[in-house]
């Protein structure tokens, strides 16, 4: 590239100097972002394996000090955390299955250009992105449907995300040519068969994106659960974690000083290990779908 401009020395010099500065800025920006993102995460991991004493005296930076598994052992004894973990798995699996089925059922017909009601129905869906009844009417609906404090209150109000519907529909439109549909219907293939035998296998990247986004959404959400669930044994992990992470001052004042210090010490450790345990499942999913994620988002979103 530099060769092209070789005969004009002035331009070449100017270009080079400018480019080096620009590339330096680019590398600095990338490096700063990567460091800023990784340091807190590495610190939390290091802290979760450190002894409470080292934590309290502020000796922990990016490597565990006095390596110990005490925090993780304490988690195993925490009954609510274990039930929360199991509940989260249940809500995530059931919720995601419902989500994906609903999304495909809506996205495929709406991707068919020959469907007469395509545009009005699409408008009805997208309008809900712009306007909603609000928190209280939704709560009253769930209450009237007698779903309060059941799994249905967690999975039904979020059964479909319009954003995911849009990217899935765009994906169907842009990757499944009309010719396949035509030739399949010549061979006597009906719409159900076409969806199951041809569209879904062709759309694995976007389905993977859907699974990832929905599953992460279910695993990470706490607000709906906080509104709709009352029984602590039905709480998902995030709600239990909220109790552990946010209620900093639960230690009673009447206890003797040594006991209180011990609780104080282990409380910090427990928080770090809780953070790790709550995030690991999502991180396990991450590399699996990683290869589809960017691709699926790109195809789906660009033309949407």
């Amino acid at each position, binding site marked *: 590239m530099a060769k*092209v*401009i070789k005969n*004009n020395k002035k*331009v070449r010099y100017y*270009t080079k100097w*400018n*480019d080096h500065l*620009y*590339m330096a800025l680019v590398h600095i*920006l990338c490096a700063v*972002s*990567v460091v*800023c*993102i990784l340091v807190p*995460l590495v*610190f*939390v991991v290091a*802290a979760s394996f450190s002894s409470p004493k080292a934590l*309290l005296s*502020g000796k922990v930076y990016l490597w565990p000090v006095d390596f110990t598994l005490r925090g993780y052992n304490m988690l195993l004894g925490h009954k609510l955390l274990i039930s929360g973990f199991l509940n989260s798995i249940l809500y995530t699996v059931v919720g995601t299955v419902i989500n994906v089925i609903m999304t495909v*059922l*809506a996205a*495929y*017909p709406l991707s068919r250009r020959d*469907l*007469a009601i395509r545009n009005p*129905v699409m408008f*009805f869906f997208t309008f809900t992105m712009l*306007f909603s*009844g*609000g*928190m*209280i*009417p*939704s709560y*009253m*609906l769930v209450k009237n449907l007698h779903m309060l404090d059941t799994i249905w209150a967690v999975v*039904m109000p979020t059964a*479909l995300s319009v954003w995911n519907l849009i990217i899935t529909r765009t994906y169907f439109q842009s990757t499944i040519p009309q010719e396949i549909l035509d030739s399949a*219907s010549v061979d006597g293939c*009906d*719409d*159900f068969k076409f969806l199951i035998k041809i569209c879904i296998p062709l759309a694995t990247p976007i389905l993977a994106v859907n699974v990832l986004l929905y599953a*992460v959404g279910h*695993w*990470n959400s*706490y607000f709906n659960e906080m509104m709709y669930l009352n029984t602590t044994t039905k709480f998902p992990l995030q709600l239990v*974690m909220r109790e552990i*992470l*946010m209620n*900093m001052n639960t230690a009673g004042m009447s206890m003797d000083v040594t006991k209180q210090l011990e609780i104080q010490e282990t409380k*910090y450790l427990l*928080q*770090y290990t*809780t*953070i790790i345990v*709550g995030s690991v499942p*999502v991180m396990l999913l991450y590399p699996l779908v990683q290869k589809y994620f960017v691709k699926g988002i790109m195809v789906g*979103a*660009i033309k949407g």
Partner: protein
Amino acid sequence: MVIKAREKNKPAKGQTGKRGVWESIVLEVRKRWQLYLMLVLPIAWLITFAYVPMAGAVIAFKDFSIRRGIWGSDWVGLRHFKNFFMTRDFGLLIRNTLAVSLYSLVVSFPMPILLALAINELSGRHYKKIVQMVTYLPYFISTVVLVGIMQNIFSVRTGLVNNVITLFGGTATDFMGKPGLFRSMYVWSGVWQGMGYSAVIYIAALASVDPSLTEAAIIDGASRFKRVWYVDLPTILPTIVIQLIMAMGSVMSVGFEKIYLLQNPVNLELSEIISTFVYKRGLVNFQYSYATAVGLFNSVCNLILIVLANMFAKKVNETSLW
């Protein structure tokens, strides 16, 4: 045979006037009944969980009592709205909501664009991929965990930040406890979490930059910066505009999940926003009608903002949501 049938039906569609609307509807549904069957479940869900609550928002104009139900309650017109506009809360909530969301918009909207432009310039597949993977990693961390991490990292006694500060001889600061820092904590943690994910969309848009344009720019002696300014940015401008319109539409609905967790009695004066107020009034104090009115006011503001932003974008550079 199917193709023939299709061609036969085509003129029928054009002659709806003659054959009657009903007939053509029946024809359409009969021909594509499977597609309509697929749509039944999603549409039923949409009506139940999106449009029924919209109708349920009429309780904002009523004095809702559980005993009498939504339709049996007394009609009070705009009383709840008037009450809301009259109280001291109104100014406070509007100020807090707008301040935190505009601050967030100004900071966290350009950051992903910068990151995407930077990642796009990186050479070497692995380097590029690693930077991208690391930067969108935090997106998958839950709000609860994010706030938990913040509380620990910035903790006065054991946190990393204060450890480093005291190591260099500074005095430890209670970042989470200082009301004045609340907005910055909210906005910059948002940048930390969402920057890489939002950049994905711009990186995708940058992939569609026409290479011949870049080559022409190089031959004309354009520097890297000029290439970005005159070639890359105009290419992704439509994407930027769409994202900006969407962001404008959510100015009044800042992420209340995070704010609710970041709230403490000390910073309440700055951290109480409309949606947290609705939650507390409605589901903690059971003032259903009043909270619904406040929420409805919020939704309407959002709708107006997004429509205005869209109109503006249409006028200025012909890119718009609809």
